[in-house]
Protein backbone atom coordinates (compact mmCIF):
# COMPACT_ATOMS: atom_id res chain seq x y z
CA UNK A 1 0.00 0.00 0.00
CA UNK A 2 1.27 3.45 -0.92
CA UNK A 3 2.32 5.46 2.10
CA UNK A 4 0.80 8.89 2.71
CA UNK A 5 4.12 9.82 4.23
CA UNK A 6 6.28 8.63 1.36
CA UNK A 7 9.88 9.33 2.27
CA UNK A 8 12.66 7.94 0.11
CA UNK A 9 15.56 8.57 2.46
CA UNK A 10 16.46 9.69 5.94
CA UNK A 11 19.83 11.12 6.88
CA UNK A 12 21.31 11.18 10.35
CA UNK A 13 23.90 13.94 10.42
CA UNK A 14 27.21 13.26 12.13
CA UNK A 15 27.08 13.82 15.89
CA UNK A 16 29.52 12.89 18.61
CA UNK A 17 30.28 9.72 20.51
CA UNK A 18 29.94 9.25 24.26
CA UNK A 19 33.36 10.84 24.84
CA UNK A 20 32.42 13.88 22.74
CA UNK A 21 34.56 12.96 19.70
CA UNK A 22 32.97 13.86 16.37
CA UNK A 23 31.31 11.08 14.42
CA UNK A 24 33.02 10.63 11.05
CA UNK A 25 29.97 10.45 8.71
CA UNK A 26 26.46 11.53 7.93
CA UNK A 27 24.42 8.34 7.51
CA UNK A 28 21.74 7.96 4.87
CA UNK A 29 19.13 5.19 4.87
CA UNK A 30 17.00 4.60 1.77
CA UNK A 31 13.94 2.63 0.68
CA UNK A 32 14.75 -0.52 -1.26
CA UNK A 33 17.80 -1.17 0.92
CA UNK A 34 18.23 -3.05 4.19
CA UNK A 35 20.76 -1.78 6.70
CA UNK A 36 21.98 -3.94 9.57
CA UNK A 37 23.06 -2.35 12.84
CA UNK A 38 25.72 -4.27 14.74
CA UNK A 39 27.39 -3.76 18.05
CA UNK A 40 27.22 -5.13 21.58
CA UNK A 41 24.53 -4.05 24.03
CA UNK A 42 25.33 -0.57 25.31
CA UNK A 43 27.30 0.37 22.20
CA UNK A 44 24.81 3.01 21.15
CA UNK A 45 22.32 1.25 18.88
CA UNK A 46 19.38 2.46 20.96
CA UNK A 47 20.81 5.95 20.96
CA UNK A 48 20.91 5.99 17.16
CA UNK A 49 17.40 4.55 16.89
CA UNK A 50 15.99 6.98 19.38
CA UNK A 51 17.61 9.86 17.47
CA UNK A 52 15.72 8.65 14.40
CA UNK A 53 12.48 8.10 16.26
CA UNK A 54 12.46 11.46 17.99
CA UNK A 55 13.41 13.36 14.80
CA UNK A 56 16.53 14.59 16.57
CA UNK A 57 17.31 18.23 15.92
CA UNK A 58 20.61 18.69 17.69
CA UNK A 59 18.64 18.41 20.93
CA UNK A 60 19.71 14.89 21.99
CA UNK A 61 22.96 13.84 23.74
CA UNK A 62 24.50 12.79 20.41
CA UNK A 63 23.95 16.20 18.81
CA UNK A 64 22.72 14.48 15.62
CA UNK A 65 19.99 15.87 13.38
CA UNK A 66 17.53 13.98 11.26
CA UNK A 67 16.88 14.99 7.65
CA UNK A 68 14.02 13.69 5.50
CA UNK A 69 14.88 13.36 1.83
CA UNK A 70 17.93 15.50 2.56
CA UNK A 71 15.95 18.36 4.12
CA UNK A 72 15.27 19.40 7.70
CA UNK A 73 11.62 18.43 8.39
CA UNK A 74 9.06 21.24 8.30
CA UNK A 75 6.93 21.98 11.37
CA UNK A 76 3.98 20.15 9.75
CA UNK A 77 6.11 17.10 8.98
CA UNK A 78 7.39 17.04 12.54
CA UNK A 79 3.87 17.15 13.91
CA UNK A 80 2.58 14.43 11.59
CA UNK A 81 5.55 12.12 12.10
CA UNK A 82 6.24 12.59 15.78
CA UNK A 83 5.96 9.22 17.47
CA UNK A 84 4.96 7.58 14.19
CA UNK A 85 8.04 7.80 11.98
CA UNK A 86 9.26 4.38 13.06
CA UNK A 87 7.33 1.10 13.14
CA UNK A 88 9.02 -1.29 15.54
CA UNK A 89 9.13 -5.03 15.77
CA UNK A 90 10.98 -6.41 18.76
CA UNK A 91 11.32 -9.84 20.33
CA UNK A 92 8.98 -9.18 23.29
CA UNK A 93 5.99 -8.35 21.16
CA UNK A 94 2.95 -10.56 21.14
CA UNK A 95 -0.57 -10.31 19.85
CA UNK A 96 -2.74 -9.77 22.89
CA UNK A 97 -6.13 -9.38 21.22
CA UNK A 98 -8.76 -12.04 21.20
CA UNK A 99 -9.61 -11.85 17.52
CA UNK A 100 -9.27 -13.95 14.39
CA UNK A 101 -6.19 -13.08 12.30
CA UNK A 102 -8.22 -12.01 9.24
CA UNK A 103 -10.65 -9.94 11.30
CA UNK A 104 -7.82 -8.11 13.03
CA UNK A 105 -5.75 -7.41 9.93
CA UNK A 106 -8.95 -6.17 8.26
CA UNK A 107 -9.43 -3.75 11.17
CA UNK A 108 -5.85 -2.60 10.63
CA UNK A 109 -6.53 -2.07 6.90
CA UNK A 110 -9.66 -0.07 7.79
CA UNK A 111 -7.69 2.07 10.20
CA UNK A 112 -5.44 2.88 7.25
CA UNK A 113 -8.39 4.45 5.51
CA UNK A 114 -9.54 1.56 3.30
CA UNK A 115 -13.24 2.26 3.82
CA UNK A 116 -14.69 -0.31 1.41
CA UNK A 117 -15.07 -3.52 3.46
CA UNK A 118 -14.39 -5.80 0.48
CA UNK A 119 -11.16 -3.93 -0.31
CA UNK A 120 -10.09 -4.07 3.35
CA UNK A 121 -10.67 -7.82 3.47
CA UNK A 122 -8.76 -8.27 0.23
CA UNK A 123 -5.82 -6.27 1.62
CA UNK A 124 -5.94 -8.36 4.79
CA UNK A 125 -5.91 -11.61 2.80
CA UNK A 126 -2.80 -10.43 1.00
CA UNK A 127 -1.10 -9.87 4.34
CA UNK A 128 -2.07 -13.33 5.55
CA UNK A 129 -0.83 -14.95 2.33
CA UNK A 130 2.45 -13.07 2.66
CA UNK A 131 2.77 -14.19 6.28
CA UNK A 132 2.11 -17.79 5.29
CA UNK A 133 4.85 -17.55 2.72
CA UNK A 134 7.26 -16.72 5.55
CA UNK A 135 5.95 -19.06 8.24
CA UNK A 136 7.20 -22.62 8.24
CA UNK A 137 3.71 -23.85 9.01
CA UNK A 138 0.80 -21.99 7.44
CA UNK A 139 -2.20 -20.83 9.50
CA UNK A 140 -5.82 -20.30 8.48
CA UNK A 141 -7.32 -16.79 8.26
CA UNK A 142 -9.80 -17.61 11.02
CA UNK A 143 -7.06 -18.70 13.48
CA UNK A 144 -7.21 -16.63 16.67
CA UNK A 145 -4.23 -14.30 17.00
CA UNK A 146 -3.42 -15.66 20.43
CA UNK A 147 -3.31 -19.23 19.06
CA UNK A 148 -0.57 -18.51 16.54
CA UNK A 149 2.81 -20.13 17.18
CA UNK A 150 5.81 -17.90 17.84
CA UNK A 151 7.00 -18.21 14.23
CA UNK A 152 3.53 -17.63 12.80
CA UNK A 153 2.86 -14.51 14.82
CA UNK A 154 6.31 -13.17 14.01
CA UNK A 155 5.65 -13.84 10.29
CA UNK A 156 2.27 -12.10 10.53
CA UNK A 157 3.81 -9.09 12.27
CA UNK A 158 6.48 -8.78 9.58
CA UNK A 159 4.00 -9.13 6.71
CA UNK A 160 1.50 -6.77 8.29
CA UNK A 161 4.13 -4.14 9.03
CA UNK A 162 5.64 -4.39 5.54
CA UNK A 163 2.29 -4.13 3.77
CA UNK A 164 -0.01 -2.11 6.02
CA UNK A 165 1.95 -0.08 8.54
CA UNK A 166 1.60 3.67 8.36
CA UNK A 167 5.19 4.40 9.30
CA UNK A 168 7.80 5.09 6.63
CA UNK A 169 10.66 3.53 8.62
CA UNK A 170 10.68 -0.03 9.92
CA UNK A 171 12.98 -1.13 12.68
CA UNK A 172 13.33 -4.83 13.29
CA UNK A 173 15.04 -6.10 16.36
CA UNK A 174 16.30 -9.49 15.22
CA UNK A 175 14.29 -12.18 13.44
CA UNK A 176 14.33 -15.38 15.46
CA UNK A 177 15.66 -18.52 13.89
CA UNK A 178 12.83 -20.98 14.13
CA UNK A 179 9.68 -20.72 12.12
CA UNK A 180 10.43 -17.75 9.86
CA UNK A 181 12.18 -17.84 6.50
CA UNK A 182 14.61 -15.00 7.08
CA UNK A 183 15.70 -14.40 3.53
CA UNK A 184 12.10 -14.44 2.29
CA UNK A 185 11.30 -11.93 5.03
CA UNK A 186 14.15 -9.74 3.78
CA UNK A 187 12.77 -9.90 0.22
CA UNK A 188 9.30 -8.93 1.42
CA UNK A 189 10.70 -6.01 3.40
CA UNK A 190 12.83 -4.87 0.47
CA UNK A 191 9.74 -4.81 -1.74
CA UNK A 192 7.86 -2.62 0.72
CA UNK A 193 8.05 1.15 0.36
CA UNK A 194 9.82 1.43 3.71
CA UNK A 195 13.27 2.24 4.94
CA UNK A 196 14.31 -0.94 6.75
CA UNK A 197 16.82 -1.14 9.58
CA UNK A 198 17.60 -4.40 11.37
CA UNK A 199 19.43 -4.58 14.67
CA UNK A 200 20.87 -8.06 14.73
CA UNK A 201 23.49 -10.47 16.00
CA UNK A 202 22.59 -13.02 13.34
CA UNK A 203 25.34 -13.62 10.73
CA UNK A 204 22.92 -14.43 7.89
CA UNK A 205 20.87 -11.30 8.47
CA UNK A 206 23.95 -9.17 8.97
CA UNK A 207 25.63 -10.42 5.81
CA UNK A 208 22.52 -10.27 3.65
CA UNK A 209 21.92 -6.60 4.49
CA UNK A 210 23.05 -4.18 1.79
CA UNK A 211 25.14 -2.30 4.32
CA UNK A 212 26.30 -3.01 7.86
CA UNK A 213 26.86 -0.28 10.38
CA UNK A 214 29.04 -1.10 13.34
CA UNK A 215 28.31 0.99 16.41
CA UNK A 216 30.81 1.58 19.21
CA UNK A 217 30.90 4.04 22.08
CA UNK A 218 27.74 5.82 20.99
CA UNK A 219 28.78 6.54 17.41
CA UNK A 220 29.00 4.75 14.07
CA UNK A 221 32.51 3.28 13.87
CA UNK A 222 32.34 1.59 10.46
CA UNK A 223 30.03 1.21 7.46
CA UNK A 224 30.67 -1.98 5.50
CA UNK A 225 29.37 -3.63 2.36
CA UNK A 226 29.76 -7.30 1.41
CA UNK A 227 33.13 -8.31 0.03
CA UNK A 228 33.37 -11.21 -2.49
CA UNK A 229 34.67 -13.43 0.34
CA UNK A 230 31.68 -12.50 2.49
CA UNK A 231 29.36 -13.17 -0.43
CA UNK A 232 30.70 -16.73 -0.64
CA UNK A 233 30.38 -17.10 3.11
CA UNK A 234 26.77 -15.92 2.98
CA UNK A 235 25.94 -18.45 0.28
CA UNK A 236 27.33 -21.26 2.43
CA UNK A 237 25.57 -19.99 5.53
CA UNK A 238 22.29 -19.77 3.64
CA UNK A 239 22.70 -23.34 2.40
CA UNK A 240 23.30 -24.41 5.95
CA UNK A 241 20.13 -22.67 7.13
CA UNK A 242 18.15 -24.38 4.39
CA UNK A 243 19.64 -27.68 5.54
CA UNK A 244 18.55 -27.00 9.09
CA UNK A 245 15.06 -26.10 7.93
CA UNK A 246 14.88 -29.32 5.89
CA UNK A 247 16.12 -31.33 8.86
CA UNK A 248 13.53 -29.69 11.11
CA UNK A 249 10.82 -30.52 8.59
CA UNK A 250 11.97 -34.13 8.26
CA UNK A 251 11.90 -34.57 12.04
CA UNK A 252 8.51 -32.97 12.36
CA UNK A 253 6.91 -35.12 9.68
CA UNK A 254 8.59 -38.36 10.72
CA UNK A 255 10.44 -38.65 7.42
CA UNK A 256 13.61 -40.74 7.44
CA UNK A 257 16.53 -38.61 8.53
CA UNK A 258 19.49 -39.37 6.38
CA UNK A 259 23.17 -38.60 6.60
CA UNK A 260 24.72 -35.15 7.24
CA UNK A 261 25.47 -34.64 3.53
CA UNK A 262 21.78 -34.99 2.63
CA UNK A 263 21.13 -31.78 4.51
CA UNK A 264 24.46 -29.98 4.42
CA UNK A 265 26.17 -30.68 1.09
CA UNK A 266 29.85 -29.74 0.93
CA UNK A 267 30.33 -27.26 -1.92
Amino acid sequence: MANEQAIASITVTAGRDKAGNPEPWDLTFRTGEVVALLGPTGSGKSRLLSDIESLADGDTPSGRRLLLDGQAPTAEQRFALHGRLVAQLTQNMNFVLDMAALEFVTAHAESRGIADPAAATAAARQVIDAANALAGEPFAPHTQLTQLSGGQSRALMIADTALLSWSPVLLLDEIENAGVDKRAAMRLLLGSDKIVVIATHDPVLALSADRRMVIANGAVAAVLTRTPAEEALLTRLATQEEGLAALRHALRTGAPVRAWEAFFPTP
Partner: protein
Amino acid sequence: MNEAAHEEATARPMRLVTVAGPPACGKTAVVAKTCAKLREAGVSTAVIKFDCLQTRDDALYQAAGVPVSVALSGGLCPDHFFASNLEEAFAWAQHTGADCCIIETAGLCNRCSPHLRGVMALCIIDNLMGIDAPEKIGPMLRLADLVLVTKGDLVSQAEREVYRHRIRQMNSRAVIRHINGLTGQGCQELAQILALAPAVATVTDMKLRFSMPAAVCSYCLSETRIGARYQKGNVRKVEFGHRQEGQHGE
Protein backbone atom coordinates in the same frame (compact mmCIF):
# COMPACT_ATOMS: atom_id res chain seq x y z
CA MET B 1 5.85 29.63 58.06
CA ASN B 2 5.00 33.26 58.90
CA GLU B 3 2.04 35.03 57.37
CA ALA B 4 3.94 36.96 54.72
CA ALA B 5 5.72 33.84 53.55
CA HIS B 6 2.41 32.00 53.56
CA GLU B 7 0.80 34.61 51.36
CA GLU B 8 3.72 34.66 49.02
CA ALA B 9 3.58 30.87 48.65
CA THR B 10 -0.14 30.82 47.94
CA ALA B 11 -0.04 33.68 45.43
CA ARG B 12 2.75 32.11 43.39
CA PRO B 13 1.47 30.74 40.07
CA MET B 14 2.31 27.07 39.52
CA ARG B 15 2.00 24.90 36.43
CA LEU B 16 -0.76 22.36 36.88
CA VAL B 17 -1.36 19.06 35.10
CA THR B 18 -4.08 16.46 35.64
CA VAL B 19 -3.22 12.84 34.80
CA ALA B 20 -6.03 10.29 34.57
CA GLY B 21 -6.11 6.69 33.48
CA PRO B 22 -7.33 3.22 34.41
CA PRO B 23 -5.63 1.34 37.27
CA ALA B 24 -2.13 0.01 36.62
CA CYS B 25 -1.85 1.52 33.15
CA GLY B 26 1.54 3.06 33.98
CA LYS B 27 0.68 6.56 35.25
CA THR B 28 3.20 6.55 38.10
CA ALA B 29 5.92 4.93 36.03
CA VAL B 30 5.57 7.62 33.36
CA VAL B 31 5.09 10.58 35.70
CA ALA B 32 8.01 9.65 38.00
CA LYS B 33 10.41 9.32 35.03
CA THR B 34 9.13 12.56 33.55
CA CYS B 35 9.65 14.37 36.88
CA ALA B 36 13.31 13.29 36.74
CA LYS B 37 13.63 14.80 33.25
CA LEU B 38 11.92 17.99 34.42
CA ARG B 39 14.34 18.22 37.33
CA GLU B 40 17.28 17.99 34.89
CA ALA B 41 15.71 20.91 33.06
CA GLY B 42 15.48 22.89 36.32
CA VAL B 43 11.72 22.43 36.84
CA SER B 44 10.79 21.13 40.30
CA THR B 45 7.63 19.05 40.71
CA ALA B 46 5.20 17.90 43.41
CA VAL B 47 2.70 15.09 42.92
CA ILE B 48 -0.70 14.47 44.48
CA LYS B 49 -2.21 11.04 44.10
CA PHE B 50 -5.98 10.62 44.42
CA ASP B 51 -7.06 7.02 44.82
CA CYS B 52 -9.84 4.94 46.40
CA LEU B 53 -8.69 2.38 48.90
CA GLN B 54 -4.93 2.18 49.00
CA THR B 55 -1.84 2.94 46.98
CA ARG B 56 1.89 2.53 47.21
CA ASP B 57 2.47 5.31 44.75
CA ASP B 58 3.76 7.60 47.52
CA ALA B 59 6.64 5.18 48.08
CA LEU B 60 7.33 5.12 44.33
CA TYR B 61 7.40 8.90 44.05
CA GLN B 62 9.49 9.25 47.20
CA ALA B 63 11.99 6.78 45.79
CA ALA B 64 12.16 9.00 42.72
CA GLY B 65 12.82 12.03 44.94
CA VAL B 66 9.50 13.72 44.18
CA PRO B 67 7.50 15.33 47.02
CA VAL B 68 4.16 13.51 47.18
CA SER B 69 0.91 13.56 49.09
CA VAL B 70 -1.80 10.90 48.88
CA ALA B 71 -5.56 11.38 49.23
CA LEU B 72 -7.77 8.29 49.58
CA SER B 73 -11.50 8.60 49.03
CA GLY B 74 -12.34 5.48 51.04
CA GLY B 75 -16.12 5.28 51.36
CA LEU B 76 -16.83 8.35 49.25
CA CYS B 77 -17.35 8.72 45.54
CA PRO B 78 -13.78 9.19 44.30
CA ASP B 79 -14.80 11.70 41.64
CA HIS B 80 -16.64 13.99 44.03
CA PHE B 81 -13.87 13.51 46.58
CA PHE B 82 -11.34 14.75 44.03
CA ALA B 83 -13.35 17.89 43.23
CA SER B 84 -14.00 18.69 46.88
CA ASN B 85 -10.30 18.49 47.81
CA LEU B 86 -8.73 20.23 44.87
CA GLU B 87 -8.20 23.65 46.48
CA GLU B 88 -6.45 22.10 49.46
CA ALA B 89 -4.37 19.85 47.19
CA PHE B 90 -3.23 22.82 45.15
CA ALA B 91 -2.36 24.79 48.29
CA TRP B 92 -0.24 21.91 49.59
CA ALA B 93 1.67 21.71 46.31
CA GLN B 94 2.29 25.48 46.34
CA HIS B 95 3.80 25.13 49.80
CA THR B 96 6.32 22.57 48.60
CA GLY B 97 7.68 25.37 46.38
CA ALA B 98 7.28 23.23 43.25
CA ASP B 99 7.21 24.84 39.82
CA CYS B 100 4.85 22.22 38.48
CA CYS B 101 2.12 20.26 40.27
CA ILE B 102 0.99 16.95 38.79
CA ILE B 103 -2.22 15.35 40.02
CA GLU B 104 -2.43 11.60 39.39
CA THR B 105 -5.92 10.18 39.73
CA ALA B 106 -6.93 6.54 39.73
CA GLY B 107 -10.14 4.88 40.74
CA LEU B 108 -12.27 7.51 39.05
CA CYS B 109 -15.08 5.75 37.24
CA ASN B 110 -14.94 5.60 33.44
CA ARG B 111 -17.93 7.91 33.30
CA CYS B 112 -15.81 10.62 34.88
CA SER B 113 -12.87 12.90 34.29
CA PRO B 114 -10.80 15.13 36.58
CA HIS B 115 -9.78 17.49 33.77
CA LEU B 116 -10.20 21.23 34.34
CA ARG B 117 -10.65 24.03 31.85
CA GLY B 118 -7.43 25.98 31.49
CA VAL B 119 -5.29 23.18 32.98
CA MET B 120 -3.21 20.75 30.91
CA ALA B 121 -4.99 17.39 30.83
CA LEU B 122 -3.32 14.02 30.24
CA CYS B 123 -4.93 10.64 29.80
CA ILE B 124 -2.75 7.54 30.01
CA ILE B 125 -3.97 4.18 28.77
CA ASP B 126 -2.08 0.99 28.03
CA ASN B 127 -2.03 -1.13 24.92
CA LEU B 128 -3.18 -4.27 26.70
CA MET B 129 -6.78 -3.24 27.29
CA GLY B 130 -8.20 -4.40 23.95
CA ILE B 131 -9.00 -2.20 20.98
CA ASP B 132 -12.44 -1.25 22.28
CA ALA B 133 -10.95 0.40 25.37
CA PRO B 134 -10.76 3.93 23.90
CA GLU B 135 -14.53 3.87 23.40
CA LYS B 136 -15.23 2.56 26.86
CA ILE B 137 -13.06 5.02 28.72
CA GLY B 138 -15.16 8.11 28.07
CA PRO B 139 -14.52 11.72 29.09
CA MET B 140 -11.10 11.30 30.74
CA LEU B 141 -9.90 10.30 27.27
CA ARG B 142 -12.23 12.36 25.11
CA LEU B 143 -11.46 15.62 26.90
CA ALA B 144 -7.68 15.16 27.31
CA ASP B 145 -5.15 17.41 25.57
CA LEU B 146 -2.56 14.68 25.45
CA VAL B 147 -3.17 10.92 25.27
CA LEU B 148 -0.22 8.73 26.18
CA VAL B 149 -0.22 5.05 25.33
CA THR B 150 1.99 2.74 27.41
CA LYS B 151 3.08 -0.91 27.14
CA GLY B 152 3.54 -0.73 23.39
CA ASP B 153 6.66 -2.83 23.95
CA LEU B 154 4.41 -5.83 24.60
CA VAL B 155 2.12 -5.77 21.58
CA SER B 156 2.47 -5.81 17.81
CA GLN B 157 2.93 -2.72 15.67
CA ALA B 158 -0.46 -3.49 14.09
CA GLU B 159 -2.24 -3.43 17.43
CA ARG B 160 -0.55 -0.15 18.30
CA GLU B 161 -1.69 1.41 15.04
CA VAL B 162 -5.28 0.20 15.32
CA TYR B 163 -5.40 1.38 18.93
CA ARG B 164 -4.10 4.79 18.01
CA HIS B 165 -6.69 5.04 15.27
CA ARG B 166 -9.47 4.24 17.75
CA ILE B 167 -8.16 6.85 20.16
CA ARG B 168 -8.16 9.39 17.34
CA GLN B 169 -11.79 8.54 16.59
CA MET B 170 -12.70 9.32 20.21
CA ASN B 171 -10.59 12.47 20.53
CA SER B 172 -9.89 14.31 17.31
CA ARG B 173 -7.69 17.07 18.75
CA ALA B 174 -5.41 15.50 21.37
CA VAL B 175 -1.74 14.93 20.77
CA ILE B 176 -1.30 11.13 20.88
CA ARG B 177 2.08 9.64 21.85
CA HIS B 178 3.46 6.21 22.61
CA ILE B 179 5.49 6.20 25.77
CA ASN B 180 7.26 3.51 27.75
CA GLY B 181 6.95 3.51 31.52
CA LEU B 182 9.67 0.89 31.92
CA THR B 183 12.44 2.31 29.77
CA GLY B 184 11.36 5.94 29.97
CA GLN B 185 11.35 6.21 26.17
CA GLY B 186 9.29 9.31 25.33
CA CYS B 187 9.53 10.86 28.83
CA GLN B 188 12.05 13.48 27.69
CA GLU B 189 9.55 14.75 25.15
CA LEU B 190 6.73 14.63 27.66
CA ALA B 191 8.82 16.71 30.07
CA GLN B 192 9.24 19.33 27.35
CA ILE B 193 5.48 19.46 26.91
CA LEU B 194 4.72 19.61 30.66
CA ALA B 195 7.21 22.44 31.08
CA LEU B 196 4.80 24.45 28.91
CA ALA B 197 1.67 23.68 30.97
CA PRO B 198 -0.21 26.88 31.86
CA ALA B 199 0.71 28.25 35.28
CA VAL B 200 -2.26 29.12 37.48
CA ALA B 201 -2.39 31.15 40.68
CA THR B 202 -5.40 29.38 42.12
CA VAL B 203 -7.87 26.64 41.26
CA THR B 204 -10.72 28.44 42.99
CA ASP B 205 -13.53 29.21 40.49
CA MET B 206 -12.02 26.91 37.88
CA LYS B 207 -14.46 24.64 36.08
CA LEU B 208 -14.38 20.92 35.45
CA ARG B 209 -14.44 20.03 31.76
CA PHE B 210 -17.11 17.43 32.45
CA SER B 211 -19.87 17.31 35.00
CA MET B 212 -19.40 14.54 37.55
CA PRO B 213 -21.86 11.68 37.79
CA ALA B 214 -24.98 12.49 39.76
CA ALA B 215 -25.13 10.61 43.03
CA VAL B 216 -27.14 10.83 46.23
CA CYS B 217 -29.17 7.68 46.40
CA SER B 218 -29.76 5.45 49.40
CA TYR B 219 -26.56 3.53 48.69
CA CYS B 220 -24.58 6.77 48.92
CA LEU B 221 -25.92 6.93 52.45
CA SER B 222 -24.62 3.49 53.41
CA GLU B 223 -27.73 1.43 52.58
CA THR B 224 -26.63 -2.19 52.13
CA ARG B 225 -29.93 -3.98 51.51
CA ILE B 226 -31.01 -4.88 47.95
CA GLY B 227 -34.54 -4.05 46.81
CA ALA B 228 -36.61 -1.23 45.28
CA ARG B 229 -38.25 -0.52 48.65
CA TYR B 230 -34.89 0.60 50.07
CA GLN B 231 -34.01 2.87 47.17
CA LYS B 232 -34.57 6.61 47.45
CA GLY B 233 -33.21 9.66 45.65
CA ASN B 234 -31.36 9.50 42.34
CA VAL B 235 -32.27 6.01 41.07
CA ARG B 236 -32.60 5.02 37.43
CA LYS B 237 -34.20 1.70 36.48
CA VAL B 238 -33.04 -0.24 33.41
CA GLU B 239 -35.44 -1.85 30.96
CA PHE B 240 -33.70 -5.20 30.61
CA GLY B 241 -33.94 -6.95 27.28
CA HIS B 242 -33.71 -3.65 25.36
CA ARG B 243 -30.41 -2.50 23.96
CA GLN B 244 -29.40 0.78 25.55
CA GLU B 245 -27.49 3.41 23.67
CA GLY B 246 -24.12 4.39 25.15
CA GLN B 247 -24.35 7.51 27.25
CA HIS B 248 -21.82 10.10 26.28
CA GLY B 249 -23.67 13.18 27.58
CA GLU B 250 -21.56 16.25 28.21
